[in-house]
């Protein structure tokens, strides 16, 4: 009987023991022409680069960053060559995976991201798509899913996620990618979207917050600047709201506004969305936090803070998007054919015959850190984040401010740099059907980040 606890301890230790290895040492950059197999892929063309970090947060191979930047520049050249000066530049999607994943071929997120790139490429209407997959040791045994046993590595991997995000190397890499994509002053026409999923959201938020803080700190009251990224999305983020609180406070106290130049169309600086069906962050995450042996000493505030929360406990046990007090946006559904979009709707993606308006939700969080629950039609649960509807939502979000107001080119339809596909093939039809599904918006030439004058 005495052996049982030793056996259990051994199993737990084995699950937490992650080999510190890289999976893309030889080749980290790929230029895919996805097949049109009628089942899985849809004949898109996209670039994919891997950048891997070890569990101390250091780069495995610094040259992976250079290779990724070269790929981005190559796709920007491709845009220039085929779209000319009216091209919108490349669209770069940076994805950080979550728990139970890594950069290996056996990782579901690698394949999900590939599928998403294909999906984005066919709906991008000729805009070159590049994916940057940020890998970190999020799984116990490489190449082998240990299933149930893997669940014991929750606390261990959560700590590693914090280390990878906070070590500084990832922050530098993200800055390089952002500047490499959008130019040194972020004025370029190419787009960059940062996405973190689950523990990858934790990694992303930890890594990107110093960049945002540094940019905002350089602003004077009333000053304006260009945004770092076109969109920063945390989807089903598995990180305590405690992580977001300092930034939320900073944004609130400094009256940071994020909008178009007229100041009338707000835009998310960060967008944290959690699926209504994500029981993992709603139930399992608080359980995992409860079992965390590094729990801080909780304090109850003498009176509720500016978001109406009265204890550290709430911030520690709940994720940002699951904390009702922090939610400041919501999706409201309506029949697509009969009604107009709701007032203040930021995007109104269509799913079937239903439109979902993303509208502000009254509450205490009035910062440009948007927090919302996401209907299951976009993301049904915690893990299924690479579905078509979610990718369409990302495209809608990316198109929302119309940073560059070029209209889709009907003559070429996005098929011209992807080989073996003639003009007017189904791919172009799909792209145009998608473009039609998005209600037209008033064009805006640029969006700006503004630090408002302190209110009296």
């Amino acid at each position, binding site marked *: 009987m005495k052996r049982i606890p030793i056996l259990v301890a051994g199993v737990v230790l084995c699950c937490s023991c992650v080999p510190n290895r890289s999976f893309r040492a030889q080749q980290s950059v790929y230029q895919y022409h996805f097949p049109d197999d009628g089942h899985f892929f849809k004949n898109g063309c996209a670039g994919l680069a891997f950048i891997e970090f070890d569990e101390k947060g250091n780069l495995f191979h610094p040259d992976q960053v250079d290779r990724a930047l070269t790929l981005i520049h190559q796709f920007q050249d491709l845009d220039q060559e085929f779209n000319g000066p009216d091209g919108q530049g490349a669209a770069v999607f940076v994805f950080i995976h979550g728990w139970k994943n890594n950069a290996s071929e056996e990782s579901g997120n690698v394949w999900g991201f590939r*599928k998403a790139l294909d999906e984005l490429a066919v709906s991008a209407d000729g805009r070159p798509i590049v994916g940057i997959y940020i890998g970190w040791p999020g799984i116990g045994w490489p190449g082998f899913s240990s*299933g149930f046993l893997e669940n014991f590595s929750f606390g261990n991997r959560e700590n590693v996620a914090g280390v990878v995000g906070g070590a500084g190397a990832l922050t530098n890499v993200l800055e390089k990618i952002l500047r490499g994509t959008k130019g040194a002053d972020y004025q370029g026409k190419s787009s960059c979207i940062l996405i973190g999923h689950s523990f990858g959201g934790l990694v992303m938020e930890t890594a990107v917050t110093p960049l945002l803080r540094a940019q905002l700190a350089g602003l004077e009251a009333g000053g304006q600047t260009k945004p770092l990224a076109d969109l920063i999305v945390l989807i089903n983020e598995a990180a305590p709201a405690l992580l977001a609180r300092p930034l939320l406070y900073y944004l609130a106290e400094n009256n940071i506004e994020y909008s178009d130049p007229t100041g*009338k169309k707000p835009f998310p600086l960060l967008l944290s969305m959690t699926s209504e069906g994500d029981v993992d962050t709603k139930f399992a995450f608080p359980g995992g936090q409860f079992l965390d042996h590094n729990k801080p000493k909780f304090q109850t505030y003498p009176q509720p803070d500016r978001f109406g929360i009265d204890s550290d406990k709430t911030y520690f046990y709940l994720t940002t998007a699951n904390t009702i007090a922090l939610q400041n946006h919501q999706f409201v559904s309506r029949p697509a054919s009969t009604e107009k979009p709701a007032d203040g709707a930021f995007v109104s993606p269509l799913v079937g015959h239903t439109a979902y308006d993303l509208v502000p939700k009254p509450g205490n969080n*009035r910062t440009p850190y948007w927090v919302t629950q996401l209907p299951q039609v976009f993301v049904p649960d915690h893990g299924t984040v690479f579905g078509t509807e979610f990718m369409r939502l990302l495209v809608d979000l990316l198109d929302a401010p119309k940073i560059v107001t070029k209209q889709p080119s009907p003559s070429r339809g996005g098929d011209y740099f992807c080989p073996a596909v003639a003009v007017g093939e189904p791919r172009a039809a799909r792209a145009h059907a998608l473009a039609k599904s998005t209600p037209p918006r008033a064009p805006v030439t640029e969006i700006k980040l503004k630090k408002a004058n302190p209110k009296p």
Partner: protein
Amino acid sequence: MYRTRTAIVQMLLRREMANNNRTGCSPWSGFIIGLWLFLLSSASALAQEPAPPVWSPPPKPHCDSFSMQHEPQMTLEEKACYFASQLFTPSAVFGAAFFGSIAMAEHTPAEWPQGAQGFGDQFGTRYTQGMVKSTGTFLVGALLHEDPRPKPPYDSACPDHLHVQHTEIWARFGSSLLRVVWTHNDQSCSDRIAFSRLAGSLASGFIQRVWLPPSQNTLGNAFLGSGSALGGYAAESVFTEFQGDLFGWLGKMFGTGKPKTLLAAPPPAAPAKN
């Protein structure tokens, strides 16, 4: 590549010029300079053309969780991985423990002891039955090209497929039950009886005859066990069908972190100018 080439060209040019300064300019050296200049200009022309991408198809998936969940057709390797992943799951372990405990409480079979050893027998027999069921299903399914997943993704290449998206609750319930005994062939769009699940269930029911004591070792009990195994597939199929709804319902019920106080509403914003 271009930069390296330009640097080499410039280096050679400088060397040539320095040499000329020392020795004086000859027609041959003038030709060389002209050649270098031509090369230099052609190199800069090359630089304006981006290197054409070398497109390649993605590799074949090998048992990653995404492909196994979303690919309309599974390969034999993926079916083997799916089978392996079913052998040690929380539901297999806890299911065997739960039903083993019930049987122990009822003290059936009466010949088996109570206590830890009895629980071990009960747990072991159910877990083994589960493994036999999975093995039988995998082997027959691999042979007959049947999909082992409780709800395979919709295959756009097979529009008349059984797994159409119903919206009514009873239609979905019926469809999920039908999928237990009626499945499609991997190699065509045709549907037919799910022989693999039936074979796995029968194997699970009859394997217990190897170790059951005489009081329980009857043909009736073997069929009862088979029915119970098929019932397990039915429960799995129904759960998979309604899992999203269940999670969504639970998620909407989950409402914590409500604000204790609300800030005053901000003044209404001026209407946007078009």
